[in-house]
Protein backbone atom coordinates (compact mmCIF):
# COMPACT_ATOMS: atom_id res chain seq x y z
CA UNK A 1 0.00 0.00 0.00
CA UNK A 2 2.39 2.61 1.17
CA UNK A 3 5.20 3.62 -1.10
CA UNK A 4 7.55 4.03 1.83
CA UNK A 5 9.51 0.94 2.67
CA UNK A 6 11.29 0.26 5.91
CA UNK A 7 14.78 -0.53 4.78
CA UNK A 8 16.30 -1.97 7.93
CA UNK A 9 16.68 -5.64 8.74
CA UNK A 10 18.17 -7.31 11.84
CA UNK A 11 16.59 -4.58 14.00
CA UNK A 12 18.48 -1.85 12.23
CA UNK A 13 21.83 -3.63 12.12
CA UNK A 14 21.78 -3.54 8.34
CA UNK A 15 20.17 -0.63 6.54
CA UNK A 16 19.76 -0.79 2.78
CA UNK A 17 19.87 2.23 0.53
CA UNK A 18 16.86 1.30 -1.59
CA UNK A 19 14.05 -1.23 -1.69
CA UNK A 20 15.67 -3.06 -4.60
CA UNK A 21 18.92 -3.37 -2.70
CA UNK A 22 16.99 -4.77 0.26
CA UNK A 23 15.35 -7.42 -1.97
CA UNK A 24 18.74 -8.69 -3.16
CA UNK A 25 20.05 -8.61 0.39
CA UNK A 26 17.17 -10.77 1.57
CA UNK A 27 17.71 -13.15 -1.34
CA UNK A 28 21.32 -13.55 -0.26
CA UNK A 29 20.22 -14.27 3.30
CA UNK A 30 17.61 -16.85 2.20
CA UNK A 31 20.13 -18.55 -0.10
CA UNK A 32 22.69 -18.81 2.68
CA UNK A 33 20.11 -20.28 5.07
CA UNK A 34 18.98 -22.83 2.44
CA UNK A 35 22.59 -23.75 1.66
CA UNK A 36 23.27 -24.32 5.37
CA UNK A 37 20.17 -26.52 5.61
CA UNK A 38 21.13 -28.63 2.61
CA UNK A 39 24.74 -28.97 3.80
CA UNK A 40 23.59 -30.09 7.25
CA UNK A 41 21.08 -32.47 5.65
CA UNK A 42 23.78 -34.13 3.57
CA UNK A 43 26.55 -34.23 6.19
CA UNK A 44 24.29 -34.96 9.18
CA UNK A 45 26.94 -34.24 11.83
CA UNK A 46 26.97 -36.89 14.56
CA UNK A 47 26.90 -34.47 17.46
CA UNK A 48 23.64 -33.03 16.13
CA UNK A 49 21.92 -36.32 15.39
CA UNK A 50 22.99 -37.96 18.68
CA UNK A 51 21.81 -35.21 20.99
CA UNK A 52 18.17 -34.61 21.77
CA UNK A 53 16.18 -31.66 23.04
CA UNK A 54 12.55 -32.14 24.12
CA UNK A 55 12.51 -35.57 22.47
CA UNK A 56 13.66 -34.32 19.08
CA UNK A 57 17.10 -34.44 17.49
CA UNK A 58 19.05 -31.20 17.70
CA UNK A 59 19.49 -31.30 13.92
CA UNK A 60 15.72 -31.26 13.40
CA UNK A 61 15.38 -28.32 15.77
CA UNK A 62 17.94 -26.44 13.70
CA UNK A 63 16.02 -27.23 10.51
CA UNK A 64 12.73 -26.03 11.98
CA UNK A 65 14.24 -22.83 13.40
CA UNK A 66 15.97 -22.02 10.10
CA UNK A 67 12.66 -22.64 8.31
CA UNK A 68 10.92 -20.15 10.57
CA UNK A 69 13.72 -17.65 9.91
CA UNK A 70 13.15 -18.05 6.16
CA UNK A 71 9.38 -17.76 6.60
CA UNK A 72 9.89 -14.55 8.57
CA UNK A 73 11.95 -12.87 5.87
CA UNK A 74 9.66 -14.01 3.05
CA UNK A 75 6.64 -12.58 4.85
CA UNK A 76 8.28 -9.45 6.18
CA UNK A 77 10.24 -8.35 3.13
CA UNK A 78 8.75 -10.08 0.08
CA UNK A 79 5.14 -9.78 1.22
CA UNK A 80 5.87 -6.30 2.67
CA UNK A 81 4.57 -7.20 6.12
CA UNK A 82 7.25 -4.87 7.50
CA UNK A 83 5.46 -1.92 5.91
CA UNK A 84 1.94 -2.85 7.04
CA UNK A 85 0.17 -1.56 10.13
CA UNK A 86 0.87 -3.53 13.28
CA UNK A 87 -2.82 -4.46 13.58
CA UNK A 88 -2.81 -6.21 10.19
CA UNK A 89 0.48 -7.87 11.03
CA UNK A 90 -0.82 -9.26 14.30
CA UNK A 91 -4.10 -10.48 12.83
CA UNK A 92 -2.39 -12.33 10.02
CA UNK A 93 0.54 -13.73 11.97
CA UNK A 94 -0.73 -14.65 15.42
CA UNK A 95 -4.03 -16.25 14.40
CA UNK A 96 -2.43 -19.08 12.39
CA UNK A 97 0.49 -19.42 14.81
CA UNK A 98 -1.91 -19.99 17.71
CA UNK A 99 -4.14 -22.43 15.80
CA UNK A 100 -1.25 -24.35 14.23
CA UNK A 101 0.66 -24.66 17.50
CA UNK A 102 -2.48 -26.07 19.11
CA UNK A 103 -3.16 -28.54 16.28
CA UNK A 104 0.46 -29.70 16.06
CA UNK A 105 0.64 -30.23 19.81
CA UNK A 106 -2.52 -32.35 19.84
CA UNK A 107 -1.68 -34.45 16.79
CA UNK A 108 1.93 -35.13 17.70
CA UNK A 109 0.95 -36.05 21.25
CA UNK A 110 -1.68 -38.44 19.93
CA UNK A 111 0.76 -39.84 17.37
CA UNK A 112 3.28 -40.59 20.13
CA UNK A 113 0.58 -42.33 22.15
CA UNK A 114 -0.45 -44.56 19.23
CA UNK A 115 3.23 -45.31 18.61
CA UNK A 116 3.47 -46.59 22.18
CA UNK A 117 0.34 -48.69 21.76
CA UNK A 118 1.74 -50.26 18.60
CA UNK A 119 5.10 -50.83 20.30
CA UNK A 120 4.06 -52.21 23.67
CA UNK A 121 0.45 -53.27 23.20
CA UNK A 122 -0.71 -56.77 22.34
CA UNK A 123 -0.98 -55.93 18.71
CA UNK A 124 1.09 -57.30 15.88
CA UNK A 125 1.50 -55.11 12.82
CA UNK A 126 5.13 -55.44 11.81
CA UNK A 127 5.23 -58.90 10.24
Amino acid at each position, binding site marked *: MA*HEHKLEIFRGLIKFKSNIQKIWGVLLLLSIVTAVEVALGIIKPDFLTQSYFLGMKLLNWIFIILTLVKAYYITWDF*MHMRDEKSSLRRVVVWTPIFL*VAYLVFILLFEGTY*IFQVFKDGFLSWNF
Partner: protein
Amino acid sequence: MDATVTTGSDENVWGGGNRPLGASYGKLMMWFFIVSDALTFSGFLAAYGFSRFKFMETWPIADEVFTHVPFFHGNYPMYYVAFMTFVLIMSSVTMVLAVDAGHKMKKNAVIWYMFATIIGGLIFVGSQAWEWATFIKGDFGALETKGGRILQFVNAETGERAAIADFAKVIPGERTLHENSNGIWYQEEGTRTTFNLNEVVEGFKANPGLLIRTETITEEGEKTLLNRQESLDKLTQAVRVVEGANLIRNEYGSRLFADFFFFITGFHGFHVFSGVVINIIIFFNVILGTYERRGHYEMVEKVGLYWHFVDLVWVFVFTFFYLV
Protein backbone atom coordinates in the same frame (compact mmCIF):
# COMPACT_ATOMS: atom_id res chain seq x y z
CA MET B 1 -2.59 3.77 -3.18
CA ASP B 2 -6.31 3.91 -2.60
CA ALA B 3 -8.96 1.24 -3.00
CA THR B 4 -10.15 0.63 -6.51
CA VAL B 5 -13.80 1.11 -5.63
CA THR B 6 -14.95 4.21 -3.76
CA THR B 7 -18.53 5.33 -3.60
CA GLY B 8 -18.01 8.64 -1.82
CA SER B 9 -21.19 8.51 0.27
CA ASP B 10 -19.94 6.12 2.95
CA GLU B 11 -16.79 7.89 4.00
CA ASN B 12 -17.93 8.40 7.60
CA VAL B 13 -16.67 6.10 10.35
CA TRP B 14 -19.76 3.87 10.69
CA GLY B 15 -20.32 3.77 6.96
CA GLY B 16 -17.04 2.01 6.30
CA GLY B 17 -14.88 5.07 6.06
CA ASN B 18 -12.69 3.88 8.90
CA ARG B 19 -9.70 1.82 7.74
CA PRO B 20 -8.14 0.30 10.85
CA LEU B 21 -5.84 -2.04 8.94
CA GLY B 22 -4.79 0.58 6.40
CA ALA B 23 -4.95 -1.84 3.49
CA SER B 24 -7.22 -1.85 0.46
CA TYR B 25 -10.15 -4.24 0.15
CA GLY B 26 -8.39 -6.42 -2.42
CA LYS B 27 -5.23 -6.81 -0.40
CA LEU B 28 -7.14 -7.59 2.77
CA MET B 29 -9.10 -10.29 0.97
CA MET B 30 -5.88 -11.76 -0.34
CA TRP B 31 -4.54 -11.87 3.22
CA PHE B 32 -7.77 -13.55 4.33
CA PHE B 33 -7.31 -16.19 1.68
CA ILE B 34 -3.66 -16.66 2.55
CA VAL B 35 -4.43 -17.17 6.23
CA SER B 36 -7.09 -19.79 5.49
CA ASP B 37 -4.89 -21.53 2.93
CA ALA B 38 -2.01 -21.52 5.40
CA LEU B 39 -4.27 -23.28 7.87
CA THR B 40 -5.19 -25.87 5.23
CA PHE B 41 -1.55 -26.63 4.51
CA SER B 42 -0.79 -26.70 8.23
CA GLY B 43 -3.55 -29.27 8.61
CA PHE B 44 -1.93 -31.47 5.97
CA LEU B 45 1.55 -31.12 7.41
CA ALA B 46 0.29 -31.75 10.94
CA ALA B 47 -1.46 -34.90 9.70
CA TYR B 48 1.83 -35.93 8.10
CA GLY B 49 3.55 -35.36 11.44
CA PHE B 50 0.88 -37.43 13.18
CA SER B 51 1.38 -40.41 10.86
CA ARG B 52 5.11 -40.07 11.08
CA PHE B 53 5.13 -40.02 14.88
CA LYS B 54 2.82 -43.02 14.80
CA PHE B 55 5.36 -44.98 12.72
CA MET B 56 8.45 -43.22 14.06
CA GLU B 57 10.66 -46.33 13.97
CA THR B 58 9.75 -47.46 10.48
CA TRP B 59 9.31 -44.24 8.49
CA PRO B 60 11.32 -44.03 5.22
CA ILE B 61 14.46 -41.88 5.24
CA ALA B 62 13.96 -39.07 2.71
CA ASP B 63 17.66 -39.01 1.78
CA GLU B 64 17.36 -42.56 0.49
CA VAL B 65 14.15 -41.93 -1.41
CA PHE B 66 14.94 -38.73 -3.34
CA THR B 67 18.39 -39.39 -4.71
CA HIS B 68 18.11 -38.45 -8.36
CA VAL B 69 19.15 -35.48 -10.44
CA PRO B 70 18.02 -35.26 -14.08
CA PHE B 71 20.70 -36.20 -16.65
CA PHE B 72 23.00 -37.58 -13.93
CA HIS B 73 23.42 -41.10 -12.70
CA GLY B 74 24.32 -41.89 -9.14
CA ASN B 75 23.31 -41.02 -5.65
CA TYR B 76 22.77 -37.30 -5.11
CA PRO B 77 20.39 -36.83 -2.20
CA MET B 78 18.68 -33.45 -1.88
CA TYR B 79 20.60 -31.52 -4.53
CA TYR B 80 17.69 -31.37 -6.92
CA VAL B 81 15.17 -30.29 -4.28
CA ALA B 82 17.61 -27.62 -3.15
CA PHE B 83 17.75 -26.43 -6.76
CA MET B 84 13.93 -26.36 -6.91
CA THR B 85 13.81 -24.35 -3.69
CA PHE B 86 16.28 -21.87 -5.10
CA VAL B 87 14.27 -21.52 -8.32
CA LEU B 88 11.14 -20.74 -6.34
CA ILE B 89 12.89 -18.21 -4.09
CA MET B 90 14.43 -16.61 -7.17
CA SER B 91 11.01 -16.28 -8.83
CA SER B 92 9.77 -14.70 -5.60
CA VAL B 93 12.55 -12.15 -5.94
CA THR B 94 11.60 -11.26 -9.53
CA MET B 95 7.98 -10.98 -8.38
CA VAL B 96 8.83 -8.51 -5.62
CA LEU B 97 10.97 -6.59 -8.12
CA ALA B 98 7.92 -6.43 -10.41
CA VAL B 99 5.87 -5.01 -7.53
CA ASP B 100 8.60 -2.45 -6.87
CA ALA B 101 8.71 -1.46 -10.54
CA GLY B 102 4.90 -1.17 -10.45
CA HIS B 103 5.11 1.34 -7.63
CA LYS B 104 7.39 3.43 -9.79
CA MET B 105 4.99 3.00 -12.77
CA LYS B 106 7.72 1.44 -14.93
CA LYS B 107 5.63 -0.65 -17.28
CA ASN B 108 8.43 -2.34 -19.21
CA ALA B 109 10.29 -3.36 -16.06
CA VAL B 110 7.07 -4.92 -14.68
CA ILE B 111 6.62 -6.86 -17.92
CA TRP B 112 10.12 -8.34 -17.83
CA TYR B 113 10.04 -9.18 -14.12
CA MET B 114 6.62 -10.84 -14.49
CA PHE B 115 7.96 -12.81 -17.43
CA ALA B 116 10.92 -14.05 -15.37
CA THR B 117 8.55 -15.00 -12.54
CA ILE B 118 6.40 -17.07 -14.89
CA ILE B 119 9.46 -18.86 -16.29
CA GLY B 120 10.64 -19.64 -12.74
CA GLY B 121 7.22 -21.03 -11.87
CA LEU B 122 7.19 -23.22 -14.95
CA ILE B 123 10.67 -24.59 -14.17
CA PHE B 124 9.48 -25.44 -10.67
CA VAL B 125 6.28 -27.20 -11.82
CA GLY B 126 8.29 -29.11 -14.44
CA SER B 127 10.80 -30.20 -11.81
CA GLN B 128 8.03 -31.38 -9.59
CA ALA B 129 6.49 -33.39 -12.42
CA TRP B 130 9.88 -35.01 -13.00
CA GLU B 131 10.24 -35.71 -9.29
CA TRP B 132 6.84 -37.39 -9.28
CA ALA B 133 7.66 -39.46 -12.36
CA THR B 134 10.92 -40.66 -10.77
CA PHE B 135 9.17 -41.46 -7.51
CA ILE B 136 6.37 -43.38 -9.23
CA LYS B 137 8.81 -45.35 -11.40
CA GLY B 138 10.93 -46.40 -8.41
CA ASP B 139 14.50 -47.56 -8.64
CA PHE B 140 15.38 -50.84 -6.92
CA GLY B 141 12.14 -52.69 -6.37
CA ALA B 142 11.23 -54.47 -3.15
CA LEU B 143 9.12 -57.22 -1.62
CA GLU B 144 6.08 -56.71 0.55
CA THR B 145 5.19 -58.96 3.47
CA LYS B 146 1.75 -60.10 4.52
CA GLY B 147 1.67 -57.32 7.10
CA GLY B 148 2.30 -54.74 4.40
CA ARG B 149 5.94 -54.10 5.40
CA ILE B 150 8.62 -53.53 2.78
CA LEU B 151 11.76 -55.66 2.41
CA GLN B 152 14.60 -54.12 0.42
CA PHE B 153 17.78 -55.74 -0.84
CA VAL B 154 21.36 -54.82 -0.12
CA ASN B 155 24.62 -56.05 -1.57
CA ALA B 156 26.52 -57.44 1.44
CA GLU B 157 29.97 -56.51 0.09
CA THR B 158 29.43 -52.94 -1.04
CA GLY B 159 26.60 -52.12 1.33
CA GLU B 160 24.71 -50.58 -1.56
CA ARG B 161 21.12 -51.24 -2.52
CA ALA B 162 20.56 -54.10 -4.96
CA ALA B 163 17.92 -53.89 -7.68
CA ILE B 164 15.64 -56.90 -8.12
CA ALA B 165 16.16 -56.68 -11.86
CA ASP B 166 19.86 -57.51 -11.33
CA PHE B 167 19.44 -60.74 -9.42
CA ALA B 168 15.96 -62.10 -10.13
CA LYS B 169 15.96 -65.43 -11.93
CA VAL B 170 13.85 -65.68 -15.03
CA ILE B 171 11.70 -68.78 -14.59
CA PRO B 172 9.63 -69.60 -17.65
CA GLY B 173 6.08 -70.56 -16.84
CA GLU B 174 2.56 -70.51 -18.12
CA ARG B 175 0.24 -67.78 -17.04
CA THR B 176 -3.44 -67.47 -17.78
CA LEU B 177 -4.63 -63.99 -18.62
CA HIS B 178 -7.41 -62.78 -16.37
CA GLU B 179 -10.42 -62.05 -18.55
CA ASN B 180 -14.04 -61.23 -17.84
CA SER B 181 -15.10 -64.50 -19.44
CA ASN B 182 -12.89 -66.79 -17.36
CA GLY B 183 -12.38 -64.88 -14.12
CA ILE B 184 -14.37 -62.74 -11.75
CA TRP B 185 -16.08 -60.26 -14.02
CA TYR B 186 -15.68 -57.19 -11.84
CA GLN B 187 -11.98 -57.72 -11.20
CA GLU B 188 -9.31 -56.26 -13.42
CA GLU B 189 -6.16 -57.94 -14.63
CA GLY B 190 -4.08 -55.28 -12.86
CA THR B 191 -0.52 -54.17 -13.55
CA ARG B 192 2.12 -56.87 -13.44
CA THR B 193 5.57 -56.32 -12.02
CA THR B 194 8.62 -57.11 -14.14
CA PHE B 195 9.38 -60.21 -12.06
CA ASN B 196 7.04 -62.33 -10.02
CA LEU B 197 7.57 -63.22 -6.38
CA ASN B 198 8.98 -66.67 -7.08
CA GLU B 199 11.58 -65.30 -9.49
CA VAL B 200 12.82 -62.76 -6.93
CA VAL B 201 12.89 -65.34 -4.11
CA GLU B 202 14.80 -67.89 -6.20
CA GLY B 203 17.19 -65.21 -7.40
CA PHE B 204 17.85 -64.17 -3.79
CA LYS B 205 18.54 -67.76 -2.73
CA ALA B 206 20.97 -68.21 -5.61
CA ASN B 207 22.94 -65.08 -4.64
CA PRO B 208 24.72 -65.54 -1.28
CA GLY B 209 25.99 -61.96 -1.42
CA LEU B 210 22.56 -60.46 -0.84
CA LEU B 211 20.94 -59.34 2.39
CA ILE B 212 17.54 -57.99 3.33
CA ARG B 213 16.95 -54.58 4.86
CA THR B 214 13.77 -54.01 6.86
CA GLU B 215 11.87 -50.79 7.54
CA THR B 216 12.92 -50.58 11.18
CA ILE B 217 15.33 -47.74 11.95
CA THR B 218 18.24 -48.51 14.28
CA GLU B 219 19.68 -46.34 17.03
CA GLU B 220 22.13 -44.88 14.52
CA GLY B 221 19.28 -43.69 12.33
CA GLU B 222 19.80 -46.30 9.63
CA LYS B 223 17.60 -49.10 8.37
CA THR B 224 18.09 -52.54 9.99
CA LEU B 225 20.22 -54.94 7.97
CA LEU B 226 19.47 -58.62 8.57
CA ASN B 227 22.15 -61.31 8.32
CA ARG B 228 21.92 -64.00 5.67
CA GLN B 229 20.00 -66.51 7.79
CA GLU B 230 17.54 -63.92 9.09
CA SER B 231 17.12 -62.69 5.52
CA LEU B 232 16.21 -66.16 4.27
CA ASP B 233 13.72 -66.53 7.12
CA LYS B 234 12.22 -63.14 6.39
CA LEU B 235 11.92 -64.01 2.72
CA THR B 236 9.26 -66.63 3.49
CA GLN B 237 6.95 -63.89 4.72
CA ALA B 238 6.97 -62.00 1.43
CA VAL B 239 3.74 -62.07 -0.54
CA ARG B 240 4.34 -59.77 -3.51
CA VAL B 241 6.82 -57.74 -5.52
CA VAL B 242 6.53 -53.95 -5.39
CA GLU B 243 8.04 -51.68 -8.00
CA GLY B 244 7.79 -47.92 -7.69
CA ALA B 245 5.10 -46.12 -5.76
CA ASN B 246 1.41 -45.42 -5.97
CA LEU B 247 -1.38 -44.63 -3.53
CA ILE B 248 -1.79 -48.26 -2.47
CA ARG B 249 1.77 -49.48 -1.98
CA ASN B 250 5.29 -48.24 -2.47
CA GLU B 251 8.74 -49.76 -2.51
CA TYR B 252 10.26 -47.07 -0.27
CA GLY B 253 8.55 -48.20 2.92
CA SER B 254 5.47 -47.05 4.79
CA ARG B 255 2.54 -46.61 2.41
CA LEU B 256 1.46 -43.43 4.14
CA PHE B 257 4.72 -41.81 3.08
CA ALA B 258 3.78 -42.03 -0.60
CA ASP B 259 0.19 -40.98 0.11
CA PHE B 260 1.30 -37.84 1.90
CA PHE B 261 3.97 -37.15 -0.67
CA PHE B 262 1.45 -37.23 -3.50
CA PHE B 263 -1.14 -35.30 -1.56
CA ILE B 264 0.95 -32.49 -0.10
CA THR B 265 3.40 -31.89 -2.95
CA GLY B 266 0.48 -32.35 -5.35
CA PHE B 267 -1.59 -29.75 -3.55
CA HIS B 268 1.36 -27.40 -3.47
CA GLY B 269 2.17 -28.08 -7.14
CA PHE B 270 -1.43 -27.22 -7.98
CA HIS B 271 -1.00 -23.93 -6.16
CA VAL B 272 2.13 -23.19 -8.17
CA PHE B 273 0.33 -24.10 -11.35
CA SER B 274 -2.64 -21.82 -10.60
CA GLY B 275 -0.18 -19.13 -9.54
CA VAL B 276 1.50 -19.37 -12.94
CA VAL B 277 -1.89 -19.09 -14.68
CA ILE B 278 -2.85 -16.01 -12.63
CA ASN B 279 0.59 -14.51 -13.27
CA ILE B 280 0.12 -15.00 -17.01
CA ILE B 281 -3.25 -13.22 -16.89
CA ILE B 282 -1.75 -10.28 -15.00
CA PHE B 283 1.26 -10.33 -17.34
CA PHE B 284 -0.99 -9.78 -20.34
CA ASN B 285 -2.96 -7.12 -18.51
CA VAL B 286 0.30 -5.27 -17.87
CA ILE B 287 1.25 -5.55 -21.55
CA LEU B 288 -2.18 -4.24 -22.59
CA GLY B 289 -1.68 -1.26 -20.29
CA THR B 290 -4.67 -1.99 -18.05
CA TYR B 291 -2.87 -0.88 -14.89
CA GLU B 292 -1.25 2.07 -16.60
CA ARG B 293 -4.76 3.38 -17.33
CA ARG B 294 -5.98 2.47 -13.86
CA GLY B 295 -3.19 4.56 -12.44
CA HIS B 296 -1.66 1.94 -10.15
CA TYR B 297 -0.26 -1.58 -10.19
CA GLU B 298 -1.98 -2.94 -7.11
CA MET B 299 -3.10 -6.09 -8.97
CA VAL B 300 0.56 -7.03 -9.41
CA GLU B 301 1.00 -6.59 -5.68
CA LYS B 302 -1.97 -8.86 -4.94
CA VAL B 303 -0.86 -11.75 -7.15
CA GLY B 304 2.59 -11.12 -5.74
CA LEU B 305 1.24 -11.87 -2.27
CA TYR B 306 -0.18 -15.15 -3.53
CA TRP B 307 3.06 -16.06 -5.28
CA HIS B 308 5.16 -15.40 -2.18
CA PHE B 309 2.74 -17.47 -0.17
CA VAL B 310 3.33 -20.42 -2.50
CA ASP B 311 7.06 -19.96 -1.89
CA LEU B 312 6.42 -19.76 1.85
CA VAL B 313 4.53 -23.06 1.84
CA TRP B 314 7.31 -24.73 -0.12
CA VAL B 315 9.83 -23.69 2.53
CA PHE B 316 7.83 -25.72 5.05
CA VAL B 317 7.17 -28.66 2.72
CA PHE B 318 10.90 -28.77 1.95
CA THR B 319 11.77 -28.92 5.63
CA PHE B 320 9.23 -31.49 6.71
CA PHE B 321 9.46 -33.78 3.70
CA TYR B 322 13.10 -33.66 2.75
CA LEU B 323 15.14 -32.43 5.72
CA VAL B 324 13.65 -33.50 9.04
